[in-house]
């Protein structure tokens, strides 16, 4: 068996603020002609003008390029084999990036007259129809800037719905489950609800009895994911929703793990009143780095009056598109984000769904489950690797959480060490888990529909090899990585605010770096 060899470049690269010399510069732009020049005072309010030039590094264009190239060469860059579970890693096709970068989209502003925005409105409207078809919901809004923002949107819609019925005083409780993403509990609490979290039962999901014990006439909503990140699907979910509905509550489907059930399950058909998809995960748009994301929030016609505005509308008589504003929807919860949300992400997701088509989406869902079941079979044979909730016999969907507790117990090597060592083989560090950390020493690979059998095999081979190393030579693994410019970061500083420096000024002020910037123009004192 051959393993990928990898060696990152190791540049002794200073920070960009430590580079350069006064007076160095890139291209000079020509002076503005007098006919088109406007006095600065006409363009900017006086209050925003600086009194001193900022302390910026002065470099030539080439030096800037070289600096950032060096930095990129020192990272693995998410281009290894990356089975980053719960994140549904997908290739973001270049063509979709090119579409979103076209001037027809990149250079427009939502404040333009609507007749000049017909093309983009049409895309948003068409994509809404696609999501309605996939979910069974009646309306979608793309304003929320991520999954948690969509969960918060639901908490606000829940509030508005019960207030409109005169029951908000009474309905103070939201029910969720321990393996539903914690943003559901957090956003419900942020919206003023008391949260009741159900623990897992013997089958790997909470018992119906625990839901019955939690539901009452105080129930405002159920907010739940299914399947969870263990890959376990709650087959009693329809009965759950009936119970919540009988009590007068709403049911929200956190469809974070939609990938394995795309076109197989419609939230509305299960009885859910609302749902959420992450376009930057399931629908092929890029994610990460806190970049633009969209939590697409969909709901039944009954909840439509409460949605954030504007909503995209279509006049069937003329075929023209418009926007329904908050002024036309008195029960709307208002905005959760500016304008219509991150429209370029919607366009990329639209391009992804159109490229796949209905059959392609179903194939993608089935492939992602097939790939995970293949992984399940192989991983179960790896020494020291145990499936979460091992008593559960049902097949897992698009991912499974595993525990390396036995490896830790027998070798002293923990899952962080193993993660650090895997990157020595050019494989991206695996995703472990998010709150709550119920599974000891967790690792959550998710192959999705992208990764080939060879890639999946490589990932498992590397994990197996690293575990063998843990048994044979634990120090080798505990001191990893060995083929990267930085081996291990002293994590103790994470809990030491005196050592944090997310800006150059903070680094200078806290003495994390010596002195001020070399060659920086301006004399702005560190503040």
């Amino acid at each position, binding site marked *: 068996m051959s393993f990928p060899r990898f060696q990152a470049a190791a540049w002794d690269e200073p920070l960009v603020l430590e580079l350069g010399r006064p007076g160095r510069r890139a291209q000079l732009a020509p002076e503005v002609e007098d006919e088109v020049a406007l006095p600065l005072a006409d363009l900017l309010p006086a209050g925003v003008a600086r009194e001193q030039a900022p302390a910026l590094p002065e470099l030539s264009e080439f030096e800037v390029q070289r600096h950032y190239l060096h930095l990129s060469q020192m990272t693995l860059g998410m281009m290894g084999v990356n089975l980053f579970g719960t994140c549904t890693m997908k290739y973001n096709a270049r063509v979709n990036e090119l579409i979103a970068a076209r001037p027809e989209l990149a250079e427009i502003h939502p404040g333009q007259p609507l007749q000049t925005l017909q093309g983009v409105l049409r895309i948003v409207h068409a994509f809404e129809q696609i999501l309605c078809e996939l979910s069974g919901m009646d309306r979608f809004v793309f304003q929320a800037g991520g999954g948690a923002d969509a969960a918060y949107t639901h908490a606000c819609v829940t509030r508005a719905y019960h207030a409109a019925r005169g029951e908000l005083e009474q309905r103070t409780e939201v029910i969720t489950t*321990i393996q539903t993403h914690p943003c559901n*509990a957090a956003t419900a*609490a942020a919206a003023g*609800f*008391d*949260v*009741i*979290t*159900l*623990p*897992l039962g*013997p089958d790997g999901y909470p018992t119906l*009895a*625990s839901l019955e*014990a*939690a539901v009452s*006439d105080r129930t405002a909503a159920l907010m739940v994911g299914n399947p969870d990140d263990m890959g376990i699907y709650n087959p009693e979910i329809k009965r759950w929703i009936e119970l919540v509905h009988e009590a007068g509550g709403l049911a929200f489907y956190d469809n974070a793990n939609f990938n394995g059930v795309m076109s197989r399950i419609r939230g509305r058909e299960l009885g859910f009143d609302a749902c959420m998809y992450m376009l930057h995960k399931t629908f092929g748009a890029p994610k990460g780095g806190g970049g633009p994301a969209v939590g697409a929030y969909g709901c039944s016609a009954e909840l439509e009056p409460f949605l954030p505005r504007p909503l995209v509308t279509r006049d069937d008589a003329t075929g023209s598109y418009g926007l329904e504003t908050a002024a036309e929807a008195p029960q709307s919860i208002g905005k959760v984000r500016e304008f219509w949300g991150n429209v370029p992400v919607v366009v990329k997701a639209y391009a992804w769904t159109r490229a796949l088509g209905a059959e392609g989406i179903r194939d993608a869902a089935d492939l992602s489950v097939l790939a995970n079941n293949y992984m399940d079979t192989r991983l179960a044979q790896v020494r020291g690797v145990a499936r979460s909730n091992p008593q559960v016999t049902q097949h897992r969907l698009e991912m499974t959480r595993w525990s390396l507790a036995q490896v830790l117990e027998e070798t002293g090597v923990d899952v962080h060490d193993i993660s650090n060592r895997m990157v020595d083989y050019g494989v991206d560090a695996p995703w472990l888990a998010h709150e*709550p950390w*119920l599974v000891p020493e967790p690792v959550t690979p998710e192959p999705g529909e992208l990764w080939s059998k060879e890639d999946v095999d490589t990932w498992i081979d590397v994990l197996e090899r690293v575990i063998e190393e843990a048994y044979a030579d634990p120090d080798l693994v505990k001191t990893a990585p060995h083929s990267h410019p930085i081996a291990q970061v002293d994590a103790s500083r994470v809990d030491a605010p005196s050592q944090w420096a997310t800006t150059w000024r903070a680094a200078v002020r806290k003495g994390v770096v010596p002195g001020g910037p070399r060659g920086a123009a301006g004399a702005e004192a560190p503040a």
Partner: protein
Amino acid sequence: MRLGLVVNPIAGMGGRVGLKGTDGPELLRRALERGATPAAPARAARALERIEQRLGGAVQLLQHDGPDSPAGTRAAARALAQARVDLLLFAGGDGTARDLLAALQELPQEQRPPLLGIPAGVKMHSACFAATPEAAGEVAAAFLRDGARARTIEAEIADRAERDNDDATTRRRGPAAIARHDADAPGRHASDVVLHGTVRVPLAPASVLGRKGGRAPASDAALAGACARIADELRTAPPGTLTLVGPGTTTARVLRELELDATPLGVDVVRDGALVARDASEQELLALLDAHAACVAAALAHDAAAPLPAGPRLLLGVVGGQGALLGRGNQQLSPAVLRRIPREAITVVADRAKLLALDPLLLHVDTGDPRLDQDLGGHLRVRVGPRESLLAEIAA
């Protein structure tokens, strides 16, 4: 199938009379003075009855005659081990477990029988105890029945440091003593609970309680928020509401929010923002409840869906690592006391991580009255944050 049995007749006698143990002649004398009666023999009988139900006459019981001192307990353990019992069952607390451990450690490894505790002490830190006497019976019966297939795991025998101190004195030292003496305390000193060694116990994760955990959570902002909100609810309770506050640092935090000085290891009683009893015994609690008999009657009769009237309430913490709610370190809350408090008037507060470390998430009640234990069974919301409860199940 040979089952060895050791019953420490004086174990746990201090619990209901407000003592934290019955270790040594002085504490025993004081327990007897306060009217304590032996409980361990009856608890052993409950376990044996369950074994009898499961295995009938197939099991041979070897009992060593009444050990009445640590030396006697050790001699009994030696004799039973030499008689090659398959399992050594005992009724006692941490002190008894320590004595048995000491005796077993004198023997070669292969001659040491696995150990299983019928819980009969006051507050048990060791990991060798079943949740209730009946659970001990179930585990023992399954272990004996499975014979060679039965599996054991290693379990720690632990005990509170300085057990022989007069703990009634240390309890009254106030907050400074909490950190030293209550293993629930975040940031506690490692010497609070002393590990004495390990024994093999039958593998039965849902029935045997883990060692009492004391790991400090990374952040307890959520718990602090839960305590503040519960304190608020106490402040706004109807006038005359009697709130019994169980032991532990978490419940003590609630009282601190009310600027009341709690007894960290005892039961306090709050009424209208003031402490009306500190470190109360069962008799004192009953006297207080009976002085509020009308409220008690109203509370017990009230409709579960309506807001609670000014009846008695109970605030409890959870023993980390074990999930014990009643019957561990709070035996003052006897069946007679608990029968006067409606179930929905019980508020439980605990650290989220501490609860989630229980696998499965089961809370245990062991009041001494199996029928009351059943009545208390079912789901219960445990307050873990200002706006969050975790639903736990009380094992009946």
